[in-house]
């Protein structure tokens, strides 16, 4: 395990809250506003950590365990992700499963914590989360399968490292583009962004992710916000890993490139949120099935 792999994780832990800040600034730019400071999410999280708590009398320890386990799972998912050609701390064949299932664990504890409040809104949010993630899971795993066929490795580090060698415009390019679009849709779904979910909505009935954490506050909510940033970082790192341009071979420069690309994903998310509206709820499954179809198409390309 190279020392740089630890820096990988430290970078993620430090810079992840920057992503929502970037998204908000991009959205403000499109709306012609000045927008909140870039570092606002840091301030938000720190402020939340300084607060007390209010719990519903309906809730039990499951409600309190949700944010803790969710954040721990998000952190573990970072340990299998490479960044800018630097392999992950835990790089082994099959680590992609640990990645996918850690995100699954995070989702599961969020859903149970939501159901613990006994609120119809939160139950609805949990149900929708389960529905969409069930449809997003095949897109992610089939896309990874396509990459495995292409690169000959089924470790995220080996897989994405192999991709850096694929020249742009080469025979692998269409495959990578298809997988990247599929992963992009998965990223938007898993992080509750437009067009799947609108993080700015103010009506409980229309929320998905936000409504599940309605009753959390203070430290717990700080954990949830931070875990959400880490999850966004993790999926952005996966997405940019697929689209990584040829590397210079110098580790600091490559890592900086990796971080820059992740920030670029945040910009892209901000642009998407600015230029399009949220999809009708019943249309979202079609989008997710389309993502799976893209992954299957990528597989067909590479297995042909």
């Amino acid at each position, binding site marked *: 395990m190279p020392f740089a792999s630890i820096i990988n994780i430290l970078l993620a832990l430090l810079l992840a809250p920057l992503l929502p800040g970037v998204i908000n600034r991009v959205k403000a730019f499109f709306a012609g506003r000045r927008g909140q400071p870039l570092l606002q999410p840091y301030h938000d999280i720190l402020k939340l950590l300084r607060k007390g708590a*209010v*719990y519903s009398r*309906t809730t039990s320890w499951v409600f309190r365990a949700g944010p*803790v386990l969710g954040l721990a799972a998000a952190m*573990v998912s970072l340990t299998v992700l490479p960044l800018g050609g630097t392999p992950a701390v835990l790089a082994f064949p099959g680590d992609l499963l640990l990645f996918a299932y850690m995100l699954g664990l995070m989702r599961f504890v969020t859903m149970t914590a939501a159901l613990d409040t006994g609120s119809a809104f939160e139950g609805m949010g*949990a149900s929708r989360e389960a529905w969409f993630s069930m449809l997003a899971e095949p897109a992610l795993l089939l896309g990874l399968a396509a990459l495995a066929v292409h690169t000959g490795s089924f470790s995220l580090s080996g897989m994405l490292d192999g991709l850096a060698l694929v020249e742009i415009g080469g025979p692998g390019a269409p495959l990578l583009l298809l997988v990247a679009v599929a992963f992009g849709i998965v990223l938007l779904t898993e992080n509750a962004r437009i067009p799947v979910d609108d993080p700015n909505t103010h009506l409980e009935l229309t929320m998905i992710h936000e409504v599940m954490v309605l009753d959390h506050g203070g430290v717990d909510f700080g954990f949830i916000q931070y875990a959400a940033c880490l999850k966004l970082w993790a999926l952005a790192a996966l997405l940019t890993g697929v689209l990584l341009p040829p590397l210079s071979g110098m580790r600091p420069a490559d890592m900086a490139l990796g971080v820059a690309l992740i920030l670029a994903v945040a910009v892209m998310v901000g642009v998407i949120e600015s230029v399009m509206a949220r999809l009708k709820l019943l249309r979202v499954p079609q989008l997710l099935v389309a993502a799976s179809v893209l992954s299957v198409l990528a597989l067909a390309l590479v297995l042909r």
Partner: protein
Amino acid sequence: MTLFLAALAVMTAGGAACLLVGRRPAVSLLGASTCTLASAAALTAAVRGMASGRTEDLLLPWPIPFGSFHVGLDGLSAFFVLVIALICPLAAIYGVSYLKPQREKKNLGGTWFFFNLLTVSMLLVVTARDAVLFLMAWEVMALTSFFLVMFEGERAETVEAGWTYLIATHLGTAFLLAMFVLLSGSGASMDFTRLQAASPAAAGACFLLALVGFGTKAGFVPLHVWLPQAHPAAPSHVSAVMSGVMIKTGIYGLLRALTFLGPPQLWWGWTLVGIGAVSGILGVLLALAQHDLKRLLAYHSVENIGIITLGIGLGLVGITSGDPAMAALGMLGGILHVLNHAVFKGLLFLGAGSILHATGSRNIEQLGGLIRRMGTTGATFLIGSAAISGLPPLNGFVSEFLIYAGAFGSLAGRPGAGAAALPALIVILALAMIGGLAAACFAKAFGIAFLGEPRSAHAEGAHEAPIGMRLPMIVLAALCVGIGVLGALAVTAAAPAAAVLLPTVDVLSQVRRVQLWLGTVSAGAVLLLVLAAGLAALRRRLLSGRTIGRTVTWDCGYTAPTARMQYTASSFASPLLGSFRLILRPDSRVHAPQGMFPAEASLHTQVEDTFERYVFTPAFRRVRNLALRLHWLQAGPNQLYVLYVAMAILVLLVWKLR
């Protein structure tokens, strides 16, 4: 082997003694203690056999035509003995407290007799080395479990479930009988060592017979219809044994049959992968549609049998395509999932039993808020729920990881593989869908039953189960975590069994390879637990000394919510089921609100088992109509029957003298 046979003898004797003791209160203790003691002995024998790597064999003469008392303990048998001897005693201990309320009403001697005999027969099924002995044990297993299902025989639905089970299991046995006859050829002996397929075509036919015969017991879709009826009808500790262990004898049978059939043919693996995918996905979808907790769990057994079959199928595909890693990983994953499913499904059924014991209801729509009334049951049920959803750091993830890794490994670096890559892709797609759906289903089952506010007076007055019922659940939950964290160790238990099935593959080197990966998975699991503990400590530290308020759940400012305003299990599952309505065809009766001031409105949705409704019910109706046509034969007068007997003898005489 002596130890193992002694275990069988003790358990049988204990069961018989229970029958004699009858209604006295000590009967439960007697039954459970003999079962536990004997299981400990059987477990020791199995573990010793696995560790030594030797195959033990015992052949005793037996005055039965074609048969001999031949039992053996190789890696495959030892693994299944381990599973049986692990779950059955825990279920028995649980049963002591669980059956206590029934003591006045029922004769428990019979129940314990059948329970012990069921355990003995399962142990014999997985160690028999003679087809006649195997089929006898198989039949005893079917009958004892039938009588256990009929424990609450005063209820009409139990009786129907029991009969469905009895018919299904005997139809399955008929296929097995045909298979063994075909395999034994013209030989006078039905010893397993002599069974072999005469030709590749015969092997294929035998494979199909085994698939139907053993698949009925295991619950392959579409042969599963008896399972969700019979398992919930039995007392909960018996459901745990039937769903966790007994259906696995079907898997054992299929695996054992594969050792007779010679080198597997290409289509066998493909067929198993297909059956596994269909069983897995349909099982979990139908589970999602259930409100009856035990029925939901029973459908999840169909799903998990699907996962096991995916692993075995992948293993067979690996053999035929000459990919030792795929063969070993698929087989190891499938076999290890047998143990894992037994552990978490046993746990979940015991948890469902505790709920039933405490509230008298299995309908999750009537429950809610149980975690604050039944802390231990709730915590262990949550662990079981996460484990069955395949989430790390629990045991379900380890076996699913192995199967996934087999599939991914076979794909990696094979561009241009074409259609040959299809089984691995189906495995990945099916496991991904099953994972998402299972997590949704158990978020629903756990969330609606244990969380929120109680939805009925029964749930309101629930009480925690006695220690005798809690202890087995705690042990099983600890096993879920233990196997999950020490996956590299757990896989060694499956290795001898896989070695029996894969004589051409160097299983040991594959195990060593995968142990490195699983070791890293363990590192991730430990890291998760450490981080969670650290964050929990941080949270406590931050919150200490600050004001912690308590209030109602946020309901948009509405301050007087009732329990009926909570989200229900049906609503939770509705969008997911809607995505699959073409397969599930849910019935819904809507009474929509009408007019300016609607007085009442209602919505009722129900999902019936697609196969039961569109295949089996019409088929059996046709059989019954056919049978009714022959009704005139059985008119009633005794003279007529005497005439039939005489005619039969006459026909036989003519046939013989001809």
